[in-house]
């Protein structure tokens, strides 16, 4: 049975559908529709919760497996939970009286030095940016994302500064309340990671900050709920996909 948001369910149908969801039997479009409905339908949400509570003993009696010592640090790393370093103690002021100390404490000297330094940096930066800009505009890898019918729908360009942009080549029909989510897959063992969510087809920068980037890396666009996939993995239909190749 599908679970479109406007469908009226009898209580037994609602409970059976909620049970199928909790058992993990809803997939694809049915799962997306169910997840959307769950947000607004309190009776359905209550039914889901009842199933979860009823079936939880099956999980509670599982044979526990001690996690390896490295697992918690991996979670901390994912959350950017680095231990705060203690504030550095204030520098003791140099002993007053000596000429060196006068010079050391002179605001005028330091302002001058700072100004000269800033000016030099500025001049260097202007030259550097001009040189870098030429290099950065050339993409390193390019992926052309194709529909199942082989129509080029979008291009993903990656640049030497690790900036990654997606440029659509076609309009993409997005159902109301849904969005386009962009994923990348570089290793099947890790699985796809979300790198962008857009409300309609438009150029966008993709977030690959901590993720690897290389040749033959898969990029794909799927249709997901407006707030992104409820599971963190692609759940909706694939609009287009393609792998990266090195630009000449």
């Amino acid at each position, binding site marked *: 049975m599908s679970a479109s948001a406007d469908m009226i369910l009898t209580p037994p149908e609602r409970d059976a559908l909620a*049970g199928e969801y909790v058992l993990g039997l809803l997939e694809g479009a049915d799962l997306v529709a169910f997840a959307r409905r769950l947000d607004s339908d309190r009776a359905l949400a209550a039914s889901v919760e009842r199933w979860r509570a009823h079936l939880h003993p099956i999980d509670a009696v599982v044979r526990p*497996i001690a996690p390896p010592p490295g697992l918690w640090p991996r979670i901390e790393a994912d959350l950017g939970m680095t231990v705060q370093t203690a504030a550095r103690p204030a520098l003791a002021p140099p002993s007053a009286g000596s000429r060196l100390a006068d010079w050391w404490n002179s605001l005028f000297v330091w302002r001058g030095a700072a100004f000269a330094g800033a000016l030099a940096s500025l001049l260097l930066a202007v030259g550097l940016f001009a040189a870098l800009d030429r290099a950065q505009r050339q993409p390193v890898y390019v992926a052309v994302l194709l529909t199942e019918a082989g129509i080029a729908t979008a291009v993903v360009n990656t640049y030497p500064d690790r900036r990654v942009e997606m440029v659509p080549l076609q309009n993409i029909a997005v159902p109301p309340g849904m969005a386009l989510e962009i994923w990348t897959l570089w290793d099947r063992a890790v699985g796809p990671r979300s790198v962008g969510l857009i409300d309609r087809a438009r150029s966008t920068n993709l977030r690959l900050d901590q993720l690897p980037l290389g040749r033959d890396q898969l990029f794909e666009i799927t249709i997901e709920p407006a707030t992104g996939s409820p599971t963190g993995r692609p759940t909706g239909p694939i609009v287009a996909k393609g792998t990266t190749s090195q630009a000449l």
Partner: protein
Amino acid sequence: MASDAASSVKAQGPSGKAKEIESALRACASGDKLALKRIYDVESARMLGVAQRLLKRRALAEEAVQDAFVLIWRHAARFDPERGSGLTWIYAILRNRSLSILRDEKRTETSEDPVAEDLASEEDDPETVMSKLSDAKALRACLETLPPQRRGIVLLAFVQGLTHGEIAGKLSMPIGTVKSWIRRSLMSLKECLG
């Protein structure tokens, strides 16, 4: 109806552990990282066991637990104790994550590299699960009202994350029959469990 539902969930009474998890989730929502570690210390071994039952491979199971804790932290503010218990909420996150990984694996897997059914241990067997449910008397009694094969199908779906199609293949039954058996089993379970 909905209020009956809510009260029946509450009637089971939040155990000490469930209360502990709920207060830790509130602390997570306000940015207390030690609270997440408290949940990890109490539940991670069972969570890894559940993920392992679904995913069969240790590396994938660990990934599911890792991702689940990241999601618990990020979504802690959305947890609403009025709508359900904190314990079932964190297991729902773990299960959703595990099932997504499982479906992705199956979608991309090659024939030389099977996940799944062949690797299932005796631990995952429906009747083994039944024998361990001694403390969950209501659930056990209600599952026992189902014919053994139908009970087995419901447990295979929940414990091993099998889809309608995979259950049909495993038992050499038409997929339509599997779907209607599950549906009817759920309706009788619902009637029995309330």
